[in-house]
């Protein structure tokens, strides 16, 4: 599904990613953990195609295509979804209309029939239950006046409606209380499928109590310094990141 080789990326002339390798197969859930400043969000943004991130070396192959060649919307059409760490508020753009336009843009670019209003509404109703999304949030402007938890829930709701093949969740757990975290995690779990890969980018282990990853990677100073199974996350929780970073430095 996704094959990242020796990825180097700069932000404003500062090298953040320094040779990152990652291979994600269809149906797998990968957790990428690391301390602040290790490059987690840079990785998420590079994969989604945000401006201002310059890839200086390496490659990212997604379903056999060069992902880095694609514009952000082309990545979305191809099934890539980024759940933002800080979802932006967009006054004047209605949440549910955006979602309908997104669904139909994706369908159109895949040569599928666009959904009419009735079909779309049925889809929305079904997915709302997954993340216990409140109906009034649907008809508001995108994220405008949403609480931190509501914003994150909206991201997962969008993910549920758009049904991506590759979902990247950038610190979706940050700023959530335990109840909201459970709801978001349940939503993500319900979206696990053999065709869908999920990359969880997180600082803390606690999200992984609710979403069990197949693989855990530790990102430090722009590289993955250790990979393992779910048990690696527990070990990190116990010993902290310093433990690994010291081994790396040695």
């Amino acid at each position, binding site marked *: 599904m996704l094959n990242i080789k020796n990825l180097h990326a700069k932000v404003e002339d500062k090298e953040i990613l320094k040779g990152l390798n990652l291979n994600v197969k269809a149906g797998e859930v990968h957790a990428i953990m690391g301390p602040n400043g290790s490059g987690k969000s840079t990785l998420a943004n590079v994969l989604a195609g945000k*401006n201002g991130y310059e890839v200086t070396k390496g490659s990212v192959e997604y379903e056999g295509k060069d992902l880095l060649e694609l514009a952000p919307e082309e990545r979305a059409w191809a099934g890539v979804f980024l759940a933002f760490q800080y979802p932006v508020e967009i006054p004047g*753009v209605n949440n549910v209309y955006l979602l309908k336009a997104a669904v139909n843009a994706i369908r159109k670019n895949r040569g599928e029939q666009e959904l009419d209003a009735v079909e779309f509404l049925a889809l929305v109703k079904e997915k709302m239950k997954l993340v216990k999304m409140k109906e009034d949030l649907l008809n508001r402007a995108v994220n405008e006046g949403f609480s931190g938890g509501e914003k994150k829930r909206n991201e997962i709701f969008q993910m549920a409606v758009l049904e991506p093949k590759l979902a990247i969740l950038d610190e979706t757990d940050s700023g959530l209380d335990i109840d909201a975290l459970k709801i978001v995690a349940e939503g993500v779990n319900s979206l696990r499928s053999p065709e869908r890969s999920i990359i969880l980018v997180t600082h803390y282990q606690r999200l992984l109590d609710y979403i069990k990853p197949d693989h855990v990677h530790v990102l430090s100073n722009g590289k993955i310094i250790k990979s393992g199974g779910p048990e690696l996350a527990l070990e990190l929780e116990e010993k902290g990141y310093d433990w690994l970073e010291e081994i790396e430095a040695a």
Partner: protein
Amino acid sequence: MSQDQMNNNIQHYLNDFEQLDDNVKSDWFSEQRKSALNLFKETGFPRTRQENWKYTDTRPIAKKSFSYTNNQSVSISTEEIDAIRFQGLDCYELVFVNGVYSKEHSRIDGLPEGTVIENMADALAKDSELLKKHLAQYADNKVSPFTALNTAFIQHGTYIDVPKNTVIEKPINVLYLSKESAKPFAAHTRNLIVMSEHSEATLIESYIGLDDANYFTNTVTEVSLAPSAILKHYKIQQESLNAYHIGNLNVVQGKDSRFESNSISLGGSLVRNDINGQLAAEGASIVMNGLYMTNNKQHVDNHTRVDHLKPNTHSSENYRGVLNGKSRAVFNGKVVVHPQAQKIEAHQNNANLLLSDDAEIDTKPELEIYADDVKCSHGATVGQLDQNMLFYLRSRAIDEETAKSLLTYAFADEVIRDISFAPVKNRLEYLIVGRLPDADLIREFTNE
């Protein structure tokens, strides 16, 4: 153009004045006309060395010989008017064609008792005390030569008199339509709205060019609000892209009265809108919302001035601009808080979106405060589309062009979305979207 040439170009207005028919010349207003004309003769067109006209050069208007039209030389069909009417808006309606009142197309039946809505020419002919009391009392000929010129030629326009305790539920929709005529024409439309105590009304002035004719609209609107009167005013400017539009709105407000202005400027080659609000008694409040969208080589200048003359008065202003192409816009918002005007509130904001490298905005908020217990704020921003918003939309499968249009629409719509008459709001949103690339796509988005 030199000063002499400019003065020469006044001559044809003087000639036109001589041609005003006797009926108009001999009315009770003739002395005021003459003095206004003399004033215009002395001052001529404004010049950019005058602070008030610093960014707006009116020489293109001065250069041309726009003639005064007294007779309706062009006809217009009901179908043409139907096409631009607000769909589904139950309203009173006045129609003017090339500055001349069209009785045939106007609909003003069933007014509340005592209410008068009529063509200014008819009001002038009646020699009424009320008209004498109010006409040309609020728009100052000395402030703008265009106002003086307008006063000299007062004939057609909207006259509204709403008596005490009268609420006019239906909006009053005035269509000032223009189309190509044999000679480039000037329409010196003059409007007067007199609202008595505790009266309420909504007035929509639409200036619409039906083709790409070159003409000159020089319109002046005077509004008098008695205590506790409320007027909601909409001005929708969609002149031809070859037209010149100078619009001057003056409102004087009594105790606890409320004036709400919504000024939308979409058309015109050279446009100047002035709004002057005088909060002349305690508790008076004024709200001014504005939107200007410019493209190509359009030039749109919005000047507003609010005078807080008495304590406990409120003003708030929110103007937004979307500039594209090589267009230029000017925003000058002046708030003057007079010495005795304590405990007032004045807020002002002007936000601009520049969509091209060649567009230019000159924005200037001006606060003059001579009282010490006041709450005032002002701000002006000039920027491009928010990159984080743009990325968010694109990551949600919206292509770049559509995302840009959508964000531009959202920016502009802030001024429109709270308009309470759905047919007006829908029409404006339709017009705004029409100005954007990918209009059809955005329409799908917004008109569900």
